[in-house]
């Protein structure tokens, strides 16, 4: 059994129990042991990077130190955490001068970044540690007939040189994982375009314009749902649809699912156990199709 330190970050425990619950259930069922670390903090994502880059690197490195001390690699459910931690991990591993500079900061809290561990998004764990073939063998409820629009968002893929999750222009990982469950991964226009999530709070109008385009393009392609791998993309598209109703006077009804929720359904979970009431756009259409 492979063990990982689960890095939850902020937004998932604060707002998305459905994501945490489904990810824990699915990974555990597939033989991945998750360890919760004490004393973690915010991962220092783009909002913190916008304020001070050095601080964001130091905070990310501090959290990696906790995993190093526990002798574990890190797994994240959030693309923001994945990006912050991976960028810091790989920048410091590749730049002795920067590593020393950040370690001077970390010495204030008795830590030293060694660069001995890796950071993974849970989709990588599914592909690399569980494997697509073993995943397929564990599917007890095939999702055949379901048309799912894979949405990668930005921060799982880019900057690709420091993340290395998949090809930033032609990724396959999420499509392959969707198809392993028996569902069809549908192609749609501007599939790789941003959800606008990071503009929320600064320019809600622009953020919503970007999210709306995703919903429209997935609808036109005949998708039954959009599948995300990041809590910020989830909010932008799920909560976003309520805001679109009032702003554009248009009604959308596109269920948004975390990949881990889809995975739990395929592994035979009862939706009642998955806190699906957290979704702003009800997912009944998807459940009717797969149950």
């Amino acid at each position: 059994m492979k063990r990982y330190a689960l890095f939850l970050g902020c937004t998932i425990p604060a707002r998305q129990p459905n994501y945490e619950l489904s990810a824990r259930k699915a990974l555990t069922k597939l033989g991945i042991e998750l360890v919760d670390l004490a004393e973690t903090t915010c991962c220092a994502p783009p909002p913190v990077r916008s304020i001070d880059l050095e601080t964001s690197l130091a905070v990310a490195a501090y959290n990696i130190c906790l995993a190093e001390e526990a002798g574990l690699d890190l797994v994240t459910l959030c693309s923001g955490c994945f990006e912050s931690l991976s960028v810091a991990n790989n920048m410091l591993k590749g730049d002795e001068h920067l590593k020393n500079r950040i370690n001077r900061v970390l010495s204030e809290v008795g830590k030293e970044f060694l660069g001995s561990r890796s950071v993974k998004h849970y989709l990588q764990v599914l592909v690399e540690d569980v494997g697509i073939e073993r995943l397929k063998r564990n599917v007890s409820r095939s999702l055949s007939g379901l048309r799912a629009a894979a949405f990668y968002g930005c921060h799982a893929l880019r900057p690709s040189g420091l993340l290395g999750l998949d090809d930033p222009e032609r990724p396959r990982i999420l499509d392959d994982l969707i198809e392993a469950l028996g569902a069809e991964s549908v192609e749609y226009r501007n599939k790789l375009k941003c959800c606008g999530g990071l503009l929320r709070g600064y320019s809600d109008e622009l953020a919503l314009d970007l999210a709306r385009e995703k919903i429209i393009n997935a609808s036109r392609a005949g998708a039954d749902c959009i599948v995300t791998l990041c809590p910020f993309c989830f909010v932008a598209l799920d909560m976003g649809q309520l805001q679109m109703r009032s702003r554009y006077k248009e009604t959308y009804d596109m269920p948004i699912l975390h990949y881990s929720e889809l995975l739990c359904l395929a592994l035979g979970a009862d939706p009642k156990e998955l806190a699906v009431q957290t979704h702003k756009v009800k997912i009944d259409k998807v459940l009717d199709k797969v149950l």
Partner: protein
Amino acid sequence: MERAEREKAAGLSFPEEVASRLGGETIKLCYQCGTCASSCPVAKITPNFNPRELIKLSLLGERDEVISGDAIWLCCSCYNCQERCPQKVEIAEVIYALRNIAFEEGRIPPIYSEFASALLRDGRIIKVSKFVEKKRSTLGLPPLKPTGVEALTRILSATGFNKLYERRERK
């Protein structure tokens, strides 16, 4: 930013100042081809943001216009531009460096102030409420481990983040 860097930056032209900062190193490699602008999802929906123009203005030394303007905050950090730049200008990082300068000068949008104060107070930019924390057990989720607020406070003080924020509060 380290003090030695800050002192050095004081006597520099704006492009030099940006290039001397963490994240800003590659700005001078830009040859204005516009691959960034044509890859930018935000530039497609508003005339107020264009990464090529933002770099151009910075290279021309238009410091005030860049630092006090709206544009640096309109980047959605999708990294498309950076991924595709033929000159390997790390455009998203350059924009972070520009935002860092703006922050040092107290020019920062309210939403970022909220992030900064939440980080200083709770160790997290989004707080987990007591209500949500209590509900975890009924959902079958394990209790949350304590947050490293104390360690974070010391890190934020070592990098000068807390002082940056206090300065912003005074303005």
